[in-house]
Protein backbone atom coordinates (compact mmCIF):
# COMPACT_ATOMS: atom_id res chain seq x y z
CA UNK A 1 0.00 0.00 0.00
CA UNK A 2 2.91 2.34 0.61
CA UNK A 3 3.48 2.72 -3.07
CA UNK A 4 4.85 5.74 -4.82
CA UNK A 5 1.56 6.07 -6.64
CA UNK A 6 -0.49 6.49 -3.47
CA UNK A 7 2.01 9.04 -2.23
CA UNK A 8 1.72 11.11 -5.41
CA UNK A 9 -2.07 10.88 -5.23
CA UNK A 10 -1.98 12.24 -1.69
CA UNK A 11 0.32 15.05 -2.76
CA UNK A 12 -1.52 15.82 -5.99
CA UNK A 13 -4.11 18.34 -4.75
CA UNK A 14 -1.45 20.32 -2.89
CA UNK A 15 0.96 20.33 -5.81
CA UNK A 16 -1.83 21.23 -8.23
CA UNK A 17 -2.96 24.26 -6.21
CA UNK A 18 0.59 25.45 -5.63
CA UNK A 19 1.31 25.01 -9.34
CA UNK A 20 -1.77 26.85 -10.60
CA UNK A 21 -1.64 29.71 -8.10
CA UNK A 22 2.11 29.86 -7.49
CA UNK A 23 4.03 28.66 -10.52
CA UNK A 24 1.66 29.70 -13.31
CA UNK A 25 1.60 33.36 -12.15
CA UNK A 26 5.39 33.27 -11.99
CA UNK A 27 5.68 31.99 -15.58
CA UNK A 28 3.02 34.47 -16.64
CA UNK A 29 4.86 37.43 -15.13
CA UNK A 30 8.10 36.21 -16.66
CA UNK A 31 6.59 36.09 -20.15
CA UNK A 32 4.74 39.38 -19.72
CA UNK A 33 7.93 41.16 -18.73
CA UNK A 34 9.25 40.64 -22.27
CA UNK A 35 6.16 42.18 -23.87
CA UNK A 36 5.02 45.65 -24.81
CA UNK A 37 1.55 45.45 -23.36
CA UNK A 38 -0.42 48.45 -22.19
CA UNK A 39 -4.20 48.06 -21.90
CA UNK A 40 -4.75 51.81 -22.39
CA UNK A 41 -2.27 52.30 -25.22
CA UNK A 42 -3.36 53.01 -28.80
CA UNK A 43 -2.41 49.45 -29.66
CA UNK A 44 -3.31 47.27 -26.66
CA UNK A 45 -2.28 43.94 -28.21
CA UNK A 46 0.84 42.43 -26.62
CA UNK A 47 4.00 42.58 -28.75
CA UNK A 48 7.42 41.11 -28.09
CA UNK A 49 9.64 43.75 -26.52
CA UNK A 50 12.92 41.99 -25.87
CA UNK A 51 14.58 43.53 -22.84
CA UNK A 52 13.08 47.00 -23.40
CA UNK A 53 11.15 46.89 -20.14
CA UNK A 54 14.28 45.97 -18.19
CA UNK A 55 16.27 48.69 -19.93
CA UNK A 56 13.59 51.18 -18.95
CA UNK A 57 13.60 50.33 -15.26
CA UNK A 58 17.32 50.82 -14.84
CA UNK A 59 16.69 54.51 -15.50
CA UNK A 60 13.45 54.71 -13.55
CA UNK A 61 14.25 57.10 -10.71
CA UNK A 62 11.00 56.34 -8.90
CA UNK A 63 11.71 52.62 -8.90
CA UNK A 64 15.29 53.06 -7.73
CA UNK A 65 14.13 55.44 -5.03
CA UNK A 66 11.54 52.88 -3.88
CA UNK A 67 14.23 50.19 -3.70
CA UNK A 68 16.53 52.49 -1.74
CA UNK A 69 13.97 53.53 0.88
CA UNK A 70 12.75 49.94 1.23
CA UNK A 71 16.29 48.80 2.04
CA UNK A 72 16.67 51.70 4.45
CA UNK A 73 13.35 50.85 6.11
CA UNK A 74 14.21 47.16 6.39
CA UNK A 75 17.68 47.91 7.77
CA UNK A 76 16.57 50.29 10.53
CA UNK A 77 13.54 48.21 11.46
CA UNK A 78 15.35 44.86 11.61
CA UNK A 79 18.43 46.15 13.45
CA UNK A 80 16.27 47.87 16.08
CA UNK A 81 14.10 44.79 16.46
CA UNK A 82 17.08 42.49 16.95
CA UNK A 83 18.69 44.71 19.61
CA UNK A 84 15.43 45.40 21.40
CA UNK A 85 14.23 41.81 21.03
CA UNK A 86 17.48 40.50 22.54
CA UNK A 87 17.20 42.79 25.55
CA UNK A 88 13.55 41.82 26.06
CA UNK A 89 14.40 38.13 25.73
CA UNK A 90 17.05 38.54 28.46
CA UNK A 91 14.46 40.21 30.67
CA UNK A 92 11.97 37.43 29.88
CA UNK A 93 14.57 34.86 31.01
CA UNK A 94 14.43 36.26 34.53
CA UNK A 95 12.05 34.96 37.11
CA UNK A 96 9.10 37.23 37.88
CA UNK A 97 5.39 36.96 38.72
CA UNK A 98 2.80 36.46 35.94
CA UNK A 99 5.48 35.58 33.39
CA UNK A 100 3.13 33.56 31.16
CA UNK A 101 0.59 36.34 31.18
CA UNK A 102 3.14 38.97 30.11
CA UNK A 103 4.48 36.64 27.45
CA UNK A 104 1.02 36.27 25.96
CA UNK A 105 0.41 40.03 26.00
CA UNK A 106 3.78 40.55 24.35
CA UNK A 107 2.83 38.17 21.51
CA UNK A 108 -0.43 39.97 20.77
CA UNK A 109 0.83 42.22 17.91
CA UNK A 110 1.92 39.11 15.97
CA UNK A 111 -1.67 37.99 15.57
CA UNK A 112 -3.19 41.37 14.67
CA UNK A 113 -4.00 41.94 10.99
CA UNK A 114 -1.34 44.22 9.46
CA UNK A 115 -4.09 46.42 8.09
CA UNK A 116 -5.48 46.85 11.62
CA UNK A 117 -1.97 47.65 12.88
CA UNK A 118 -1.86 50.44 10.29
CA UNK A 119 -5.29 51.66 11.41
CA UNK A 120 -4.17 51.66 15.05
CA UNK A 121 -1.09 53.72 14.34
CA UNK A 122 -3.03 56.05 12.10
CA UNK A 123 -5.33 56.80 15.02
CA UNK A 124 -2.32 57.46 17.25
CA UNK A 125 -0.75 59.89 14.81
CA UNK A 126 -3.60 61.86 13.21
CA UNK A 127 -3.09 65.53 14.12
CA UNK A 128 -5.82 66.86 16.41
CA UNK A 129 -7.01 63.35 17.26
CA UNK A 130 -4.11 61.14 18.29
CA UNK A 131 -2.14 61.48 21.52
CA UNK A 132 1.28 61.40 19.83
CA UNK A 133 1.08 64.79 18.06
CA UNK A 134 -0.43 66.29 21.21
CA UNK A 135 2.27 64.96 23.56
CA UNK A 136 5.16 65.79 21.24
CA UNK A 137 3.86 69.32 20.76
CA UNK A 138 3.24 70.03 24.45
CA UNK A 139 6.27 68.40 26.04
CA UNK A 140 8.93 68.65 23.36
CA UNK A 141 7.62 71.42 21.11
CA UNK A 142 7.87 69.15 18.08
CA UNK A 143 5.50 69.83 15.24
CA UNK A 144 4.58 66.21 14.50
CA UNK A 145 2.69 65.75 11.26
CA UNK A 146 3.55 62.62 9.31
CA UNK A 147 1.37 63.85 6.49
CA UNK A 148 3.80 66.72 5.86
CA UNK A 149 7.28 65.73 7.02
CA UNK A 150 9.00 62.86 5.15
CA UNK A 151 11.51 62.07 7.91
CA UNK A 152 8.82 61.85 10.57
CA UNK A 153 6.76 59.60 8.31
CA UNK A 154 9.75 57.32 7.72
CA UNK A 155 10.62 57.11 11.41
CA UNK A 156 6.99 56.42 12.30
CA UNK A 157 6.78 53.51 9.84
CA UNK A 158 9.95 52.05 11.38
CA UNK A 159 8.55 52.43 14.91
CA UNK A 160 5.27 50.83 13.85
CA UNK A 161 7.19 47.89 12.42
CA UNK A 162 9.17 47.63 15.65
CA UNK A 163 5.93 47.56 17.65
CA UNK A 164 4.50 44.92 15.37
CA UNK A 165 7.45 42.53 15.00
CA UNK A 166 9.82 42.89 17.97
CA UNK A 167 7.78 40.20 19.82
CA UNK A 168 8.78 37.70 17.13
CA UNK A 169 12.47 38.41 17.77
CA UNK A 170 11.96 38.32 21.53
CA UNK A 171 10.27 34.92 21.42
CA UNK A 172 12.74 33.35 18.98
CA UNK A 173 15.74 34.57 20.96
CA UNK A 174 14.02 33.53 24.17
CA UNK A 175 13.79 30.00 22.79
CA UNK A 176 17.48 30.12 21.82
CA UNK A 177 18.53 31.53 25.20
CA UNK A 178 16.58 28.84 27.06
CA UNK A 179 18.49 26.11 25.24
CA UNK A 180 22.00 27.47 25.97
CA UNK A 181 24.30 25.07 27.80
CA UNK A 182 25.25 26.21 31.29
CA UNK A 183 28.84 24.98 31.58
CA UNK A 184 30.65 27.57 29.42
CA UNK A 185 28.99 30.40 31.36
CA UNK A 186 29.87 28.91 34.74
CA UNK A 187 33.43 28.30 33.59
CA UNK A 188 33.75 31.88 32.34
CA UNK A 189 32.49 33.23 35.63
CA UNK A 190 35.00 31.15 37.54
CA UNK A 191 37.72 32.48 35.23
CA UNK A 192 36.59 36.01 36.11
CA UNK A 193 35.31 37.14 32.73
CA UNK A 194 33.43 40.45 32.64
CA UNK A 195 29.74 40.43 31.66
CA UNK A 196 30.63 42.04 28.34
CA UNK A 197 33.32 39.41 27.65
CA UNK A 198 30.82 36.66 28.43
CA UNK A 199 28.28 38.25 26.07
CA UNK A 200 30.79 38.80 23.27
CA UNK A 201 32.74 35.54 23.43
CA UNK A 202 30.15 33.04 24.60
CA UNK A 203 26.53 34.22 24.33
CA UNK A 204 26.84 35.82 20.92
CA UNK A 205 28.58 32.89 19.18
CA UNK A 206 25.99 30.49 20.62
CA UNK A 207 23.11 32.72 19.56
CA UNK A 208 24.51 33.48 16.13
CA UNK A 209 22.47 30.88 14.22
CA UNK A 210 19.25 31.95 15.93
CA UNK A 211 20.01 35.64 15.34
CA UNK A 212 20.82 35.07 11.68
CA UNK A 213 17.67 33.01 11.16
CA UNK A 214 15.61 35.76 12.76
CA UNK A 215 17.31 38.45 10.67
CA UNK A 216 16.63 36.35 7.57
CA UNK A 217 12.92 35.97 8.32
CA UNK A 218 12.39 39.52 9.48
CA UNK A 219 14.29 40.89 6.46
CA UNK A 220 12.08 38.96 4.04
CA UNK A 221 8.97 40.27 5.76
CA UNK A 222 10.19 43.85 6.07
CA UNK A 223 11.06 43.99 2.37
CA UNK A 224 7.50 43.12 1.42
CA UNK A 225 5.62 45.25 3.96
CA UNK A 226 2.63 46.88 2.29
CA UNK A 227 -0.59 46.78 4.30
CA UNK A 228 0.30 48.72 7.40
CA UNK A 229 2.29 51.35 5.51
CA UNK A 230 -0.59 51.90 3.13
CA UNK A 231 -2.95 52.35 6.06
CA UNK A 232 -0.61 54.66 7.99
CA UNK A 233 0.85 57.00 5.39
CA UNK A 234 -0.50 55.84 2.04
CA UNK A 235 3.13 55.94 0.86
CA UNK A 236 3.44 59.65 1.49
CA UNK A 237 4.16 62.41 2.01
CA UNK A 238 4.99 62.50 -1.72
CA UNK A 239 6.90 59.22 -2.14
CA UNK A 240 8.75 59.24 1.19
CA UNK A 241 7.34 55.93 2.43
CA UNK A 242 6.34 54.42 -0.89
CA UNK A 243 8.22 51.18 -0.37
CA UNK A 244 8.65 48.72 -3.20
CA UNK A 245 5.48 46.70 -2.55
CA UNK A 246 3.40 49.87 -2.43
CA UNK A 247 5.12 51.13 -5.55
CA UNK A 248 4.18 48.04 -7.55
CA UNK A 249 0.67 47.99 -6.15
CA UNK A 250 -0.26 51.65 -6.31
CA UNK A 251 1.89 53.08 -9.11
CA UNK A 252 3.03 50.46 -11.59
CA UNK A 253 0.01 48.21 -11.58
CA UNK A 254 -2.84 50.78 -12.01
CA UNK A 255 -1.01 52.35 -14.95
CA UNK A 256 -2.01 49.19 -16.88
CA UNK A 257 1.46 49.12 -18.41
CA UNK A 258 1.51 45.38 -17.85
CA UNK A 259 4.82 44.62 -19.55
CA UNK A 260 6.72 47.18 -17.50
CA UNK A 261 4.85 46.26 -14.32
CA UNK A 262 5.83 42.62 -14.85
CA UNK A 263 9.49 43.57 -15.30
CA UNK A 264 9.46 45.54 -12.05
CA UNK A 265 7.71 42.71 -10.21
CA UNK A 266 10.28 40.24 -11.44
CA UNK A 267 13.27 42.40 -10.56
CA UNK A 268 11.82 42.88 -7.09
CA UNK A 269 11.52 39.13 -6.71
CA UNK A 270 15.07 38.74 -7.96
CA UNK A 271 16.44 41.34 -5.53
CA UNK A 272 14.58 39.69 -2.66
CA UNK A 273 15.97 36.28 -3.55
CA UNK A 274 19.52 37.60 -3.88
CA UNK A 275 19.35 39.34 -0.54
CA UNK A 276 17.87 36.31 1.16
CA UNK A 277 20.39 34.06 -0.52
CA UNK A 278 23.23 36.15 0.86
CA UNK A 279 21.75 35.87 4.33
CA UNK A 280 21.13 32.17 3.84
CA UNK A 281 24.69 31.52 2.74
CA UNK A 282 25.99 33.15 5.89
CA UNK A 283 23.72 30.78 7.80
CA UNK A 284 24.81 27.65 5.98
CA UNK A 285 28.48 28.58 6.12
CA UNK A 286 28.10 28.72 9.87
CA UNK A 287 26.17 25.47 9.94
CA UNK A 288 28.96 23.58 8.19
CA UNK A 289 31.60 25.05 10.44
CA UNK A 290 29.79 24.41 13.69
CA UNK A 291 28.14 21.21 12.59
CA UNK A 292 24.88 22.11 14.26
CA UNK A 293 22.13 24.62 13.79
Amino acid at each position, binding site marked *: *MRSQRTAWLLLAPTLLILFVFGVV*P*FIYVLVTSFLHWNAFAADPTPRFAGVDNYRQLVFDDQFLYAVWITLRFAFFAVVSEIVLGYLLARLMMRDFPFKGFFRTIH*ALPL*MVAPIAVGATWRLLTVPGLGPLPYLLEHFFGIDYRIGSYPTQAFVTTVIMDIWHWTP*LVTLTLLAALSSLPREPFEQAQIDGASPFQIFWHITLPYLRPAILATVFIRMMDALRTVDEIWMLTGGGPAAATRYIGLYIWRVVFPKTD*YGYGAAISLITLYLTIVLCWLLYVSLVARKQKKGSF
Partner: protein
Amino acid sequence: MRRPRRLVTFLFWCGASFVTLFPIYWMFVISAKSRADLFGRPSLIIDSLNWANYAATLSDPTFQLYMLNSIIVATCNSLLVTVLALLATYALSRFPMAGKENIFFWTITNRMAPPAVFLLPLFLLYTQAFTIGDWKLYDTRIGLILLYCVFNLPFAIWILRGIIDAIPKELDEAAMVDGASLWQILTRVILPVARPGFAVTAILTWVFAWNEYLFAATLTSVHARTITTGLAEFVTVTGTNWGLMAATAMLTLIPAVVFLGLVQRHIVAGLTFGAVKE
Protein backbone atom coordinates in the same frame (compact mmCIF):
# COMPACT_ATOMS: atom_id res chain seq x y z
CA MET B 1 18.15 39.42 48.03
CA ARG B 2 16.25 38.37 44.90
CA ARG B 3 13.01 40.16 45.72
CA PRO B 4 13.89 43.67 44.49
CA ARG B 5 15.11 42.23 41.18
CA ARG B 6 11.92 40.30 40.71
CA LEU B 7 9.92 43.43 41.43
CA VAL B 8 11.94 45.57 39.01
CA THR B 9 11.52 42.97 36.23
CA PHE B 10 7.82 42.73 36.98
CA LEU B 11 7.43 46.51 36.79
CA PHE B 12 9.42 46.60 33.57
CA TRP B 13 7.08 44.09 31.96
CA CYS B 14 4.09 46.09 33.16
CA GLY B 15 5.56 49.03 31.25
CA ALA B 16 6.31 46.92 28.18
CA SER B 17 2.77 45.55 28.19
CA PHE B 18 1.49 49.12 28.41
CA VAL B 19 3.43 49.97 25.24
CA THR B 20 1.99 46.87 23.53
CA LEU B 21 -1.57 47.47 24.62
CA PHE B 22 -1.82 51.24 24.49
CA PRO B 23 -2.32 51.61 20.69
CA ILE B 24 -5.13 49.05 20.84
CA TYR B 25 -6.63 50.65 23.94
CA TRP B 26 -6.52 54.01 22.17
CA MET B 27 -8.36 52.54 19.22
CA PHE B 28 -11.02 51.28 21.62
CA VAL B 29 -11.31 54.77 23.14
CA ILE B 30 -11.86 56.30 19.70
CA SER B 31 -14.36 53.61 18.77
CA ALA B 32 -16.40 54.33 21.89
CA LYS B 33 -16.65 58.08 21.40
CA SER B 34 -19.24 60.03 19.49
CA ARG B 35 -18.06 62.07 16.53
CA ALA B 36 -18.47 65.35 18.44
CA ASP B 37 -16.20 64.25 21.30
CA LEU B 38 -13.29 63.11 19.12
CA PHE B 39 -11.30 66.24 18.58
CA GLY B 40 -9.82 68.62 21.09
CA ARG B 41 -7.55 67.64 23.93
CA PRO B 42 -7.00 63.88 23.74
CA SER B 43 -8.42 62.21 26.80
CA LEU B 44 -7.40 58.70 27.72
CA ILE B 45 -10.50 57.97 29.70
CA ILE B 46 -13.81 56.95 28.24
CA ASP B 47 -16.44 59.14 29.89
CA SER B 48 -19.41 57.18 28.69
CA LEU B 49 -19.40 54.15 26.48
CA ASN B 50 -20.94 54.94 23.14
CA TRP B 51 -21.76 51.89 21.10
CA ALA B 52 -23.14 53.90 18.18
CA ASN B 53 -20.10 53.20 16.01
CA TYR B 54 -20.35 49.46 16.54
CA ALA B 55 -24.09 49.52 15.93
CA ALA B 56 -23.60 51.55 12.75
CA THR B 57 -20.90 49.19 11.46
CA LEU B 58 -22.72 45.98 12.30
CA SER B 59 -26.02 47.12 10.78
CA ASP B 60 -24.45 48.31 7.54
CA PRO B 61 -25.35 45.76 4.80
CA THR B 62 -22.02 46.32 2.99
CA PHE B 63 -20.10 45.64 6.15
CA GLN B 64 -22.22 42.59 6.88
CA LEU B 65 -21.34 41.22 3.46
CA TYR B 66 -17.62 41.90 4.03
CA MET B 67 -17.77 40.21 7.41
CA LEU B 68 -19.61 37.22 5.97
CA ASN B 69 -17.10 36.97 3.12
CA SER B 70 -14.20 37.06 5.56
CA ILE B 71 -15.75 34.35 7.70
CA ILE B 72 -16.53 32.13 4.69
CA VAL B 73 -13.13 32.63 3.04
CA ALA B 74 -11.15 32.09 6.23
CA THR B 75 -13.16 29.05 7.32
CA CYS B 76 -13.19 27.30 3.94
CA ASN B 77 -9.52 28.08 3.39
CA SER B 78 -8.58 26.80 6.83
CA LEU B 79 -10.53 23.54 6.37
CA LEU B 80 -9.22 23.00 2.85
CA VAL B 81 -5.64 23.71 3.88
CA THR B 82 -5.78 21.47 6.93
CA VAL B 83 -7.20 18.52 4.96
CA LEU B 84 -4.82 18.91 2.00
CA ALA B 85 -1.88 19.41 4.33
CA LEU B 86 -2.80 16.25 6.23
CA LEU B 87 -2.75 14.23 2.99
CA ALA B 88 0.44 15.83 1.70
CA THR B 89 2.28 15.62 4.99
CA TYR B 90 1.31 12.00 5.49
CA ALA B 91 2.72 11.20 2.05
CA LEU B 92 5.93 13.11 2.78
CA SER B 93 6.30 11.59 6.21
CA ARG B 94 5.47 7.91 5.60
CA PHE B 95 6.02 6.97 1.96
CA PRO B 96 9.31 6.19 0.30
CA MET B 97 9.53 8.83 -2.42
CA ALA B 98 12.33 9.95 -4.63
CA GLY B 99 13.25 13.59 -3.98
CA LYS B 100 10.63 14.14 -1.33
CA GLU B 101 12.83 16.56 0.61
CA ASN B 102 13.08 18.68 -2.54
CA ILE B 103 9.31 18.67 -2.88
CA PHE B 104 9.03 19.65 0.76
CA PHE B 105 11.49 22.51 0.33
CA TRP B 106 9.84 23.71 -2.88
CA THR B 107 6.48 23.77 -1.08
CA ILE B 108 7.95 25.97 1.62
CA THR B 109 9.48 28.46 -0.83
CA ASN B 110 5.97 29.29 -2.05
CA ARG B 111 5.39 31.14 1.17
CA MET B 112 8.49 33.26 0.90
CA ALA B 113 7.70 35.17 -2.28
CA PRO B 114 6.70 38.82 -1.84
CA PRO B 115 2.95 39.01 -2.56
CA ALA B 116 3.17 42.35 -4.38
CA VAL B 117 5.19 40.63 -7.12
CA PHE B 118 2.28 38.29 -7.89
CA LEU B 119 -0.46 40.90 -7.88
CA LEU B 120 -0.11 41.79 -11.53
CA PRO B 121 0.00 38.26 -12.98
CA LEU B 122 -2.77 37.07 -10.65
CA PHE B 123 -4.95 40.03 -11.58
CA LEU B 124 -4.47 39.29 -15.27
CA LEU B 125 -5.04 35.56 -14.80
CA TYR B 126 -8.14 36.10 -12.65
CA THR B 127 -9.72 38.55 -15.07
CA GLN B 128 -8.65 37.03 -18.39
CA ALA B 129 -7.42 33.45 -18.16
CA PHE B 130 -9.20 31.72 -15.26
CA THR B 131 -12.65 32.12 -16.77
CA ILE B 132 -15.43 29.81 -17.88
CA GLY B 133 -17.65 31.62 -20.36
CA ASP B 134 -18.77 34.81 -18.61
CA TRP B 135 -17.74 33.54 -15.20
CA LYS B 136 -14.41 34.82 -13.88
CA LEU B 137 -12.41 33.80 -10.86
CA TYR B 138 -12.03 37.54 -10.23
CA ASP B 139 -14.19 38.85 -7.38
CA THR B 140 -15.23 35.41 -6.14
CA ARG B 141 -14.79 33.88 -2.72
CA ILE B 142 -13.51 30.65 -4.22
CA GLY B 143 -10.75 32.67 -5.94
CA LEU B 144 -9.53 33.93 -2.58
CA ILE B 145 -9.98 30.56 -0.89
CA LEU B 146 -7.77 28.83 -3.46
CA LEU B 147 -5.21 31.61 -3.61
CA TYR B 148 -4.71 31.74 0.16
CA CYS B 149 -3.61 28.10 -0.06
CA VAL B 150 -0.40 29.35 -1.64
CA PHE B 151 0.80 30.84 1.63
CA ASN B 152 -1.24 28.74 4.08
CA LEU B 153 -0.49 25.27 2.70
CA PRO B 154 3.30 25.54 3.08
CA PHE B 155 2.79 26.81 6.61
CA ALA B 156 0.40 23.97 7.49
CA ILE B 157 2.67 21.34 5.93
CA TRP B 158 5.60 22.71 7.89
CA ILE B 159 3.75 22.55 11.21
CA LEU B 160 2.17 19.15 10.54
CA ARG B 161 5.44 17.61 9.31
CA GLY B 162 6.92 17.86 12.76
CA ILE B 163 3.77 16.51 14.36
CA ILE B 164 3.22 13.53 12.03
CA ASP B 165 6.92 12.61 12.03
CA ALA B 166 6.67 12.37 15.81
CA ILE B 167 3.84 9.81 15.69
CA PRO B 168 5.40 6.33 15.88
CA LYS B 169 5.21 4.48 12.56
CA GLU B 170 4.29 1.29 14.37
CA LEU B 171 0.93 2.82 15.21
CA ASP B 172 -0.30 3.11 11.63
CA GLU B 173 1.57 -0.04 10.57
CA ALA B 174 -0.41 -1.98 13.17
CA ALA B 175 -3.63 -0.49 11.83
CA MET B 176 -2.57 -1.43 8.31
CA VAL B 177 -1.96 -5.03 9.37
CA ASP B 178 -5.47 -5.05 10.83
CA GLY B 179 -6.71 -4.18 7.36
CA ALA B 180 -7.48 -0.49 7.82
CA SER B 181 -7.72 1.54 4.66
CA LEU B 182 -5.60 4.64 4.13
CA TRP B 183 -8.58 6.86 4.86
CA GLN B 184 -9.26 4.98 8.09
CA ILE B 185 -5.65 5.33 9.16
CA LEU B 186 -5.76 9.06 8.56
CA THR B 187 -9.07 9.69 10.32
CA ARG B 188 -8.92 7.06 13.09
CA VAL B 189 -5.21 6.93 13.92
CA ILE B 190 -3.36 10.07 12.83
CA LEU B 191 -6.09 12.66 13.41
CA PRO B 192 -7.00 11.66 16.99
CA VAL B 193 -3.36 11.40 18.07
CA ALA B 194 -2.41 14.75 16.56
CA ARG B 195 -5.58 16.64 17.40
CA PRO B 196 -3.94 19.59 19.25
CA GLY B 197 -1.51 20.12 16.38
CA PHE B 198 -4.33 20.16 13.87
CA ALA B 199 -6.29 22.60 15.99
CA VAL B 200 -3.34 24.99 16.11
CA THR B 201 -2.79 24.64 12.36
CA ALA B 202 -6.44 25.27 11.60
CA ILE B 203 -6.62 28.28 13.89
CA LEU B 204 -3.43 29.91 12.63
CA THR B 205 -4.30 29.41 8.94
CA TRP B 206 -7.74 30.80 9.72
CA VAL B 207 -6.20 33.90 11.28
CA PHE B 208 -3.74 34.36 8.39
CA ALA B 209 -6.60 34.16 5.87
CA TRP B 210 -8.69 36.54 7.93
CA ASN B 211 -5.80 39.03 8.18
CA GLU B 212 -4.86 39.01 4.48
CA TYR B 213 -5.39 42.28 2.69
CA LEU B 214 -3.32 42.82 -0.45
CA PHE B 215 -4.78 40.02 -2.60
CA ALA B 216 -8.31 40.62 -1.32
CA ALA B 217 -8.01 44.30 -2.26
CA THR B 218 -6.67 43.55 -5.75
CA LEU B 219 -8.64 40.47 -6.78
CA THR B 220 -12.10 41.49 -5.61
CA SER B 221 -14.28 44.48 -6.40
CA VAL B 222 -17.79 44.15 -4.98
CA HIS B 223 -19.04 40.66 -4.13
CA ALA B 224 -16.08 39.01 -2.43
CA ARG B 225 -14.52 41.93 -0.53
CA THR B 226 -13.34 41.04 2.93
CA ILE B 227 -13.32 42.91 6.23
CA THR B 228 -9.70 44.03 5.85
CA THR B 229 -10.44 45.71 2.52
CA GLY B 230 -13.49 47.30 4.12
CA LEU B 231 -11.24 48.69 6.84
CA ALA B 232 -8.87 50.18 4.27
CA GLU B 233 -11.76 51.79 2.42
CA PHE B 234 -12.38 54.05 5.41
CA VAL B 235 -9.11 55.82 4.80
CA THR B 236 -9.11 56.29 1.05
CA VAL B 237 -12.37 58.22 1.16
CA THR B 238 -11.93 61.88 2.03
CA GLY B 239 -13.13 62.91 5.45
CA THR B 240 -12.44 59.69 7.32
CA ASN B 241 -14.97 58.79 9.97
CA TRP B 242 -12.44 57.83 12.63
CA GLY B 243 -14.95 56.41 15.07
CA LEU B 244 -16.34 54.01 12.49
CA MET B 245 -12.86 53.05 11.33
CA ALA B 246 -11.79 52.31 14.91
CA ALA B 247 -14.90 50.22 15.54
CA THR B 248 -14.29 48.20 12.36
CA ALA B 249 -10.62 47.72 13.24
CA MET B 250 -11.62 46.51 16.71
CA LEU B 251 -13.98 43.98 15.12
CA THR B 252 -11.15 42.92 12.77
CA LEU B 253 -8.83 42.06 15.62
CA ILE B 254 -11.30 40.12 17.74
CA PRO B 255 -10.17 36.69 16.36
CA ALA B 256 -6.54 37.55 17.06
CA VAL B 257 -7.34 38.31 20.69
CA VAL B 258 -9.66 35.33 21.11
CA PHE B 259 -7.18 32.79 19.73
CA LEU B 260 -4.02 34.36 21.12
CA GLY B 261 -3.91 32.38 24.34
CA LEU B 262 -4.50 29.08 22.54
CA VAL B 263 -1.85 29.35 19.86
CA GLN B 264 0.63 31.76 21.44
CA ARG B 265 3.27 29.07 21.97
CA HIS B 266 3.13 27.97 18.35
CA ILE B 267 3.14 31.36 16.65
CA VAL B 268 6.89 31.63 16.74
CA ALA B 269 7.64 28.19 15.33
CA GLY B 270 5.03 28.94 12.71
CA LEU B 271 6.23 32.37 11.70
CA THR B 272 9.90 31.44 11.63
CA PHE B 273 9.36 28.16 9.80
CA GLY B 274 10.85 26.20 12.60
CA ALA B 275 14.18 27.96 12.21
CA VAL B 276 13.97 28.23 15.96
CA LYS B 277 12.43 25.35 17.80
CA GLU B 278 10.75 25.90 21.12
